[in-house]
């Protein structure tokens, strides 16, 4: 994850309390989505950014995961994300995300 984005995530978690923060990602691949989730839950696995060794345990979803999608207005989702469901490997993304959540998320 971009170093500046890691810095902002860390600041917001401190400012609002990690239990009040949710991170939503839009990554193109399961692996990249999982990497982003791991970064905000268990720390930066690439040891490069401000979240290195910081286990925030934030709740993190990909925008295409069914439990998140269910909370959106269906029309707005369709207009903004709908087409990408035909493009992305949603099953792979969901599998990666739930794996990371069950291992590292502290606010499930």
């Amino acid at each position, binding site marked *: 994850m971009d170093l500046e984005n890691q810095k902002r995530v860390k600041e917001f978690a401190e400012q609002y309390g990690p239990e009040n923060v949710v991170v939503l990602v839009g990554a193109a691949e399961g692996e990249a989505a999982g990497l982003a989730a791991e970064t905000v839950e268990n720390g930066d696995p690439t040891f490069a950014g401000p979240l290195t060794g910081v286990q925030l345990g934030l709740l993190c979803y990909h925008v295409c995961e069914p439990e998140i999608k269910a909370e959106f207005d269906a029309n707005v989702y369709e207009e903004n994300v709908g087409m*990408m469901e*035909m*493009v992305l490997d949603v099953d792979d993304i969901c599998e990666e995300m739930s794996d990371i959540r069950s291992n590292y998320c502290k606010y499930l």
Partner: protein
Amino acid sequence: MNSVIKSASYVLAHVPQMVIHNGTTQTTERVVNPDGDYLKELPKHLRSFKDCVEYWPNQVYIGNKTPEELEAVEFPYYDKNIDGASRYGKYGEIMPEDEFLLLAQTCDVFEVYYLTRDFVAATRPKLEADPIITDDIKGRIQEGIELSEIEKLVKEEAAEGLYLDGKLVGCVKRAHDIDVNLSAEVMHENIMNKATGVLSLLYLVRNAGINAADVDYVIDCSEEACGDMNQRGGGNFAKADAEIAGLVNATGSDARGFCAGPTHAMIEAAALVKSGAFRNVAVVGGGCTAKLGMNGKNHVEKDMPALEDCLGAFAILVSENDGVSPEINLDILGRHTVGTGSAPQNVIGSLVADPLERAGLTVNDVDKYSPEMQNPDITKPAGAGDVPQANYKMIAALSVKKGWIEKKDMPEWIKKHGLTGFAPTQGHVPSGVPFIGFARDGILEGKYKRVMIIGKGSLFLGRMTNLFDGVSYIIQTNTSAEESQNSVSRDEVKKLIAASLKEFANSLLGTEEA
């Protein structure tokens, strides 16, 4: 009449040492994690020049192989080299690091670039043996200075080192003591951009079969910025490149738009020529040292070669209609506007579906689409997916929504209208342009009638706007013969006017007589 694509050139400079010293992934790592494993492991993953030349996607980039041939190669590509492949190609070449360092020396006009005497002596015959290198450029080679002087500049003056096989062979000095826009790092980045731009212009002139003096305008569409603290990004790479490449009659300017830059520049070039303002406009994009090894961490982690070891550059010549070459049709332009938004369907809609609909066409009327042609060998292991394929899936998915194709036919449609990515991840370089050479050849052979070139840009990276960007245009078979058949010639118009005036005069005479 529409302007035409007169020629295209594509070059690579294999610069493994710059991956280590100048790629931002590595320079960042040296700041945040200097003792980490990555910087220790990376040198073991750098490719030899031979491996770089024999790499399939690179052979496609310089025109020795086609994207169709690449499609038949089993993925991944890095372990399936083409034995004995040539560094020279139909569209350009792959230059090794030593020759490139010397070429870059000839591009320095402010005495900031130094090489050792020994290095210059050893490399000069090699560079001079390259048939594209002009006598002008050979005459610009400087003899070099002592290694001790270079070591001193690096240690005491914050000069940026130039390396070959791990050894210091030169440096780039800062051009100002205080101004960060003229720091050694920025000067290095800009001179390398310039050197690759120059090389691509040399090939452009050769491939077009014109004289260098015939080019009258150059648009540079790279991602670097040259200027000083009072006008950062003031420019102008275009004219700087043109000077070294011997385009004595050219003026020029820089156009920027992140990865969409080349597509904007091509539309501008086509408009300049169609309007009659200029006759031969060269669009040039130089290489980007910052992006070398951008995804290197993933490549090293997956124990594969660090594939982002080349600076990429291209140049396209847009000229007056010659009655033969493929045309740029300015009536079918895709535009991502301020109001388009960033939803992927809106982006693709504005760039692909809308312009086609305005022209009364559908996606099926375009033979090939060239969106972002990033080589998946580089991006897939980095978790960024297969970028061209994702673009094709988006176009196909939108076409399903439009009722142009059936959902079940998506994979087949993508195979027919899509391409395999082969371009280095140099930002603007993969953006539509890598296929223009093949599109030109394919249209001339009658293989394609229409090819759409799509450029997209991440403007939000500049922190000035959250907007996305993109433009697209169509290259098509030359239609000037049809146009002249359908239109009435000037002489015919004169005859028609004369006849009707005579008729009118007669009618007046007739009225008076009556």
